[in-house]
């Protein structure tokens, strides 16, 4: 029988997971897309080729939608630490709150300050300055990622603090140790690559969609479509294998600092050398065994320790009340890995097609690429579920329990707000998705709106510059 406080805790966790899960999609999207836009504008300035400007104009519309959804969903996060996790905030705020403040001051203002110029300013500032604004926004998204991952990694592998015996607060001793804590570099690289890869697959799917559409009417796809598809597939071919290497390194790091998380991800109960890898299974936290296991001998040790007889931890080595829920992360981890393999496969496939000169003429491959549109984001979410559920039952690893971090909010309030969050998020972000799909469903055109480069800003601005009435230009009535 669950008591009201237990349920309130569960709802507090679910609410935070829901809001942060929706939120993380948008910053990841912005990180990748802002970098892509900076590259496109840079290429346009360098080569003067119209196609890069066309693509810039095409993707900046999506960017403005995605970015605004990131801003509003992120605002929620900066207050939710206090509303849902007040005890955690009070104890860890001297560290995590300061890191968040640095994020706001070094990243959010930079992005917000130059976003206006980027979206509306091309005819008000020079080309060079406009490019600088795009770069500032892109760099801002990267700085933002750096701080928030420093903060998250500190919660996973805390360093550089002492605990004040009187209040139980975490007192910062060494800020460099706090920021550059042991899991931070791995998490940062893994997340950065994930953002780039996610966007590469969205761009690739958009290109593939328009290649297929052109083919259906017996036409050749326009140059912007081919260029974006090609660029995206280069990214897939290069970044997906890199991401697998980065993920592997991150896994070794986790094995060292959070072995029970690894045991739960793998569904392993006994510590053993020459461990097998479970391809499938249903971990049972009560009976302490993994049912229906499908095993590959030795592979577990090989993956986790890079040697055949390396020791792999089991959950039984850890007290019951310190084990994360294995059934959740066993699957989230496997889905992530499977998608990573698929993405790498698509990347290699594209290289092979490119060599054959068939990259733009392989409808089956294009269909696969369309289906892979959400692959990066699903993998990213599964990765976050793995690492966040896997560090339970702690907020600050090994030091502060989740159950001791929660705010004194009554169940009825939690239930009301949870309902409100779900309703509003479904309406707002559901609509955002529909708008985004409509935007991307329209193909980028060569020299769309007949715009000369000097005239580009007016065209750029049209999507949010409401002076032009009627549907979005080029949308086709």
């Amino acid at each position: 029988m669950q008591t009201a406080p237990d349920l309130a805790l569960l709802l507090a966790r679910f609410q935070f997971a829901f809001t942060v899960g929706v939120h993380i999609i948008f910053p990841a999207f912005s990180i990748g897309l802002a970098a892509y836009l900076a590259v496109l504008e840079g290429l346009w300035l360098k080569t003067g080729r119209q196609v890069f400007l066309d693509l810039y104009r095409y993707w900046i519309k999506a960017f403005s939608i995605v970015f605004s959804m990131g801003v509003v969903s992120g605002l929620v996060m900066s207050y939710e630490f206090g509303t849902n996790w007040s005890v955690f905030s009070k104890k860890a705020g001297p560290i995590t709150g300061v890191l968040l403040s640095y994020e706001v001051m070094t990243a959010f203002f930079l992005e917000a300050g130059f976003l206006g110029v980027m979206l509306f300013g091309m005819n008000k500032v020079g080309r060079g300055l406009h490019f600088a604004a795009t770069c500032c926004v892109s760099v801002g998204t990267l700085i933002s990622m750096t701080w928030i991952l420093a903060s998250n990694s500190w919660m996973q592998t805390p360093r550089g603090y002492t605990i004040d015996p009187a209040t139980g607060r975490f007192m910062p001793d060494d800020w460099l140790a706090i920021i550059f804590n042991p899991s931070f570099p791995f998490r940062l690289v893994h997340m950065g690559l994930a953002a780039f890869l996610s966007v590469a697959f969205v761009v690739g799917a958009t290109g593939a969609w328009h290649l297929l559409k052109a083919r259906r009417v017996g036409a050749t796809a326009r140059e912007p479509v081919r260029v974006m598809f090609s660029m995206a597939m280069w990214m897939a071919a290069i970044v997906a294998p890199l991401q697998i290497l980065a993920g592997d390194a991150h896994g070794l790091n986790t094995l060292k600092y959070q072995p029970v998380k690894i045991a739960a991800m793998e569904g392993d109960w006994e510590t053993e050398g020459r461990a097998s890898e479970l391809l499938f299974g249903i971990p049972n936290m009560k009976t302490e065994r993994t049912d229906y296991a499908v095993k590959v001998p030795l592979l577990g040790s090989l993956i986790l320790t890079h040697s055949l007889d390396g020791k792999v931890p089991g959950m039984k080595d850890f007290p019951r009340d310190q084990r994360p829920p294995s059934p959740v992360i066993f699957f989230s981890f496997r889905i992530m890995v499977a998608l990573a393999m698929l993405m790498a496969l698509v990347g290699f496939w594209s290289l092979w097609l490119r060599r054959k000169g068939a990259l733009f003429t392989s409808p089956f491959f294009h269909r696969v690429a369309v289906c892979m549109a959400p692959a990066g984001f699903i993998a990213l979410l599964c990765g976050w579920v793995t690492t966040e559920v896997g560090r339970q039952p702690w907020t600050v690893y090994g030091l502060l329990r989740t159950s001791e971090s929660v705010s004194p909010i009554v169940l009825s309030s939690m239930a009301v707000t949870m309902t409100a969050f779900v309703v509003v998020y479904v309406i707002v972000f559901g609509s955002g998705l529909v708008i985004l799909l409509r935007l991307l469903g329209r193909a980028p055109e060569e020299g769309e709106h007949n715009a000369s480069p000097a005239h580009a800003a007016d065209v750029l601005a049209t999507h949010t510059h409401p002076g032009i009435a009627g549907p979005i230009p080029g949308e086709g009535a």
Partner: protein
Amino acid sequence: MMDFAYWLPIVWAVILVAAITIYVILDGFDLGIGMLFALERNQGRRDVMVNTIAPVWDGNETWMVLGGAVLYGVFPGAYATLLPAFYLPIVLMLLALIFRGVSFEFRIMTRGTAREALWEVGFMAGSGIAAFSQGVILGGVIQGIAVTNGEFTGGALDWLTPFSVLCGLAVMCGYALLGATWLVWRTTGVLEASCRKWAAWLAIGLFAGIVAVSLWTPLLHAPYLRRWTDWPNILFVAPVPVLVVVLGALLAMGLRRGHSRVPFLCALGWFFLCLSGLGITVWPYAVPPSLTLWDVSSPPSSQFFQLVGTAILLPIILTYTIYSYRVFRGKVTEADGYH
């Protein structure tokens, strides 16, 4: 170290109040413009209203993120008690700001479809509800919350009182005034003329609100009353109400004589005075009526590290924020979208 522990919270209190003031002023006119949608039905003129803030609203809202983050890092004791205490109005405000924020893009992207109305209303209602919630939270902080051993121990609806509702309405009125005077400055023609008319009524409403809140506040807690009536405090605080009246007269004059910037600057002055008056009243409490700034502070090692960064970054932020405002300066007209 003892000195540090005494001075750092004071320095941070000043920075935090400054950040809140900047937020209230900047996002105040954004939210005010959202509310004024209720009075302006013409789509072309609504577009002009939005165009005056579209390039800057995101930066304006960032000051609120800064406020939350600074509270979290520098005064975690306040962050951890105020946010649970105002849980419902805070969530309401955040959800309202979500609607407001996405409506900038969505109302254009859905133009000509059935869903356009949703985002027009979302922009208006989101702005109004966010403003009201902020006022209610402000009123709730002034009237104080129940705290035992540094934790919030009151009820979920403690914040809901006639006083906090009055503050909510006053803030709505004030933001709408900021929005109207901003539009007087930044637009022309019919819209500017309407805004002058609205601004006059809103100024009367806000003045009444300021008077009511100012008379009510000292009655909430005895120390508040003493702050304003004891000798020699009265010498330092007396100019505040006098200046409020002077600015009100200037505002009325500016509106009538067709000045373009004076009304907005006067409205800013009112907000500045109100927030200063508020600061004077609750000082030195961070969570009235029980926790002082020092009770809720993070250790000096946190506050100092953050202060170093702030001292370097805040001037840079202000510089490029001003730059970005300058890029989009000047009157905005309906023709602007058409070049």
